[in-house]
């Protein structure tokens, strides 16, 4: 009996352990899917133009104490107190941060209710959204920074002068500025079709250039045992939930926002156009023939990693700067400096209507605001402005001069070996997500290996900006709040239904009519007006 008991005990323990692991898998996918493009940033604007002689925010001996609520993207594993580069910035500015760092996967859910409650907030908050409905501005949580920009925004205004589109995007319709933007002055280093090049070579195929050729290529991959494991388990195209929409670019459609600027300058809903119907036909065929991963609507980041590590993926449309990690997963012995990338980006496919581009990054990658609970908004703003100076920027991206890099005239020489060893750069606080900052190409090109930078150069001309983020007018907001959730609910479920074939494409006209009864045309007008305002501001 005792023996039986101990056996049962062991079995139960095992069950618990197994369930713990599955639990980890279940929760971590959330964080993976929540990674926003805010980490994908760079630019080519000349770094030298920004002001050099910046006075630190405060001059008194007593450091300025700021309470600060933010998230740190994917690198929360490193302690902020030990991020030498960030700490050096604080030391030079004579600022002490009472930091509240929250994991990016739960940041939205944690901070939104606190903002909604609107009491006992810290001085500076990284916004959990881009507040395009101006909910937080209207609520009065954040103070109007327009005058502070004019008075103290030395570095920020300089950055705006260099990048003139930014100011229009962050101003409210009445011309005020409430937030400090995380600026990403380049639209490249973004999503692209990444293909398994050794597979293409094994098949003797060249890189596809049109959507039709792409279909043929994927078809050729099917059932060929390209990974040599003796099983028919190759997945020609892997897509995670919410990612297939990115292919809309090749049909000239922005399926993420749902609204696209047509050639004649009118804004139309992407989900009602004839081109979208063609898109659905194409992808239904891909799904039916098993070329598109059959769990594309539900697959998670874990599944993706798992499949890459078994070398089962033929292509994927996502950030091409991830190719290094894909290649590392496929081949654990992949050498960052010597080996060629296994997954490599290709130029956009020419779609059936002649579109040949990828969607690029929006220059506005996030917002920080100063709350009305802040007692010294001027001092705090001066510190934030300092973060946009060249001095702070160099610290944030290159590190401490003499230790992490040396200058030779205009050139900056980095110790790339040191930076890449043991995540050194991340540990020091490279591109720390919890700071307002401007990201430029010069930082980006250095942080990746040469091949990724080279690929990016090739792809750069193909990146096109979608309708950028900016604010809605009060009366537009009523329309957006009333209809947008219903519309996106309906089109996102029909998107999957048409592709998997649970709904037949003969119902497409009915579907469009339904969208019209759900006021899609009112929403088109709102986006048209917003787009026109952006054009005007530029």
């Amino acid at each position, binding site marked *: *009996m005792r023996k039986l008991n101990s056996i*049962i005990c062991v079995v*139960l323990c095992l*069950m*618990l352990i197994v*369930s*713990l692991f*599955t*639990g*980890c*898998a*279940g*929760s971590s996918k959330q964080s993976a899917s929540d990674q926003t493009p805010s980490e994908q940033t760079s630019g080519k604007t000349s770094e030298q133009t920004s002001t050099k002689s910046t006075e630190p925010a405060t001059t008194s001996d007593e450091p300025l104490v700021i309470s600060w609520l933010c998230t740190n993207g994917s690198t929360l594993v490193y302690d902020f107190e030990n991020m030498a580069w960030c700490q050096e910035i604080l030391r030079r500015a004579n600022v002490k941060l009472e930091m509240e760092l929250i994991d990016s996967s739960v940041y939205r*859910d944690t901070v*939104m*209710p606190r*903002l*909604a*409650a*609107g009491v006992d907030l810290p001085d500076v908050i990284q916004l959990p959204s881009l507040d395009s*409905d101006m*909910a*937080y501005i*209207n*609520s*009065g*949580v954040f103070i109007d920074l327009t005058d502070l920009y004019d008075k103290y925004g030395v570095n920020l205004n300089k950055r705006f002068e260099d990048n003139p589109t930014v100011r229009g995007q962050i101003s409210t319709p009445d011309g005020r500025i409430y937030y400090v933007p995380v600026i990403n002055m380049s639209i490249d280093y973004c999503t692209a079709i990444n293909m398994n090049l050794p597979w293409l070579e094994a098949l003797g195929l060249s890189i596809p250039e049109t959507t039709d050729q792409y279909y043929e290529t994927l078809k050729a991959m099917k059932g060929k045992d390209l990974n040599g494991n003796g099983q028919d388990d190759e997945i020609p195209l892997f897509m995670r*939930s919410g990612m297939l929409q990115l292919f809309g670019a090749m049909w000239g459609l922005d399926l993420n926002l749902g609204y696209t600027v047509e050639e004649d300058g009118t804004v139309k809903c992407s989900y009602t156009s004839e081109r979208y119907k063609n898109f659905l036909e194409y992808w239904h065929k891909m799904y039916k023939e098993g070329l598109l991963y*059959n*769990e594309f*609507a*539900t697959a*998670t980041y874990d599944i993706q990693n798992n499949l890459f590590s078994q070398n089962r993926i033929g292509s994927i449309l996502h950030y091409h700067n991830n190719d290094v990690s894909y290649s590392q997963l496929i081949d654990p012995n992949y050498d960052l400096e010597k080996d060629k990338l296994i997954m490599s980006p290709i130029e956009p496919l020419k779609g059936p209507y002649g579109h040949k581009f990828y969607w690029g990054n929006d220059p506005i990658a996030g917002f920080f605001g100063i709350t009305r609970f802040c007692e010294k908004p001027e001092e705090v703003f001066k510190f934030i402005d300092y973060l946009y100076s060249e001095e702070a920027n160099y610290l944030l991206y290159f590190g401490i001069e003499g230790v992490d890099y040396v200058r030779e005239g205009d050139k900056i020489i980095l110790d790339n070996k040191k930076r890449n060893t043991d995540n050194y750069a991340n540990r020091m606080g490279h591109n720390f997500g919890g700071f307002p900052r401007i990201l430029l190409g010069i930082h980006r090109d250095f942080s990746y290996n040469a091949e990724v930078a080279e690929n990016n150069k090739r792809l750069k001309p193909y990146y096109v900006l979608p309708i950028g983020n900016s604010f809605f007018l009060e009366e537009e907001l009523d329309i*957006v*709040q*009333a209809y*947008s*959730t*219903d519309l996106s*609910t*309906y089109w*996102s*479920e029909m*998107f*999957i*239904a048409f592709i*998997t074939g*649970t709904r037949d494409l003969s119902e497409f006209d009915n579907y469009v009519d*339904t969208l019209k*009864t*759900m006021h899609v045309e009112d929403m088109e007008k709102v986006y048209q007006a917003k787009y026109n305002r952006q054009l005007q501001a530029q």
Partner: protein
Amino acid sequence: MQAKAGTKLRTRIIKALKRDKYLFLMFLPIFIYYIIFNYIPITGAIIAFKDYKPGMGLYSGKWVGFKWFVQFFESPFAFRLIRNTVLIALYSIIYGFPVPIIFAICITEIQNTKMRRIVQTASYLPHFISTVVVVGMLKNFLSVNDGIVNAIIAALGGERINFMMDAKWFRTIYVASGVWQHFGFNSIIYIAAIIGIDPSLYESSKIDGITKFKEVWYITIPMIAPTIIVLFILQLGRIMSVGFEKVYLMYSPAVYETADVISTYVYRKGIESSSYSFSAAVGLFNSVVNFAFVFGSNLISRKLTQTSLW
């Protein structure tokens, strides 16, 4: 006369307080908990009738009457949301309610105490696994490519089923996993009730030569009927409030047709596009319906069986 009754009541209360002071002391934290977390927040329901802006305090914003209720019922999805919510709850009750009772009756019939304890403990365990873990397990087991369930189906020559992307399967998976997870724990209260039945009833019936089945039917079930009814009424009170997190973790646009319930829709609309007043209005509507169900079923039960919550 009234004053006399008043003082009488007062002395009775004071007496009761004195006599049971430790019981009342034990009750106090729960009392405070309910006041702070359940009663005081009720006043916040006021924002359902206002145009609430975050950060300005609960009692600011202009009155808009029933605007948000109208907006919800005008939504093309209002009917579907209510249908999904009610059906999931209804199926959970239909399939989930009898199982713990049957299980409790079966387990109390096991004579070997050690065996009984083992079975009982094993049946509780899933209850303590967090929802996130359970859904993670479901996704792994039911995966169309690598899941064990589909491996079995394929081995038996069947067609693989994409469970998580098929709207037809959502309710089945949701309800079945819910029953599996909670039946053991929910049976505790019935087991306690069955153990509390006077053994002399069984003894005398045995003398009369009763069969096992009839014993259950004529003694056990009638004796635990009050417990069953009370728990059933409480269950009905949750008919409009399907657990948010489990649906949220399990669903995707592929299964909105059957999976999108009121709470998930309100989450998408209310929290993600920050229309807090709208969310409050729908939440209030939910609570009113739940309240009506509890009240109504209690009334019916009192009339029919003399058993009721109050």
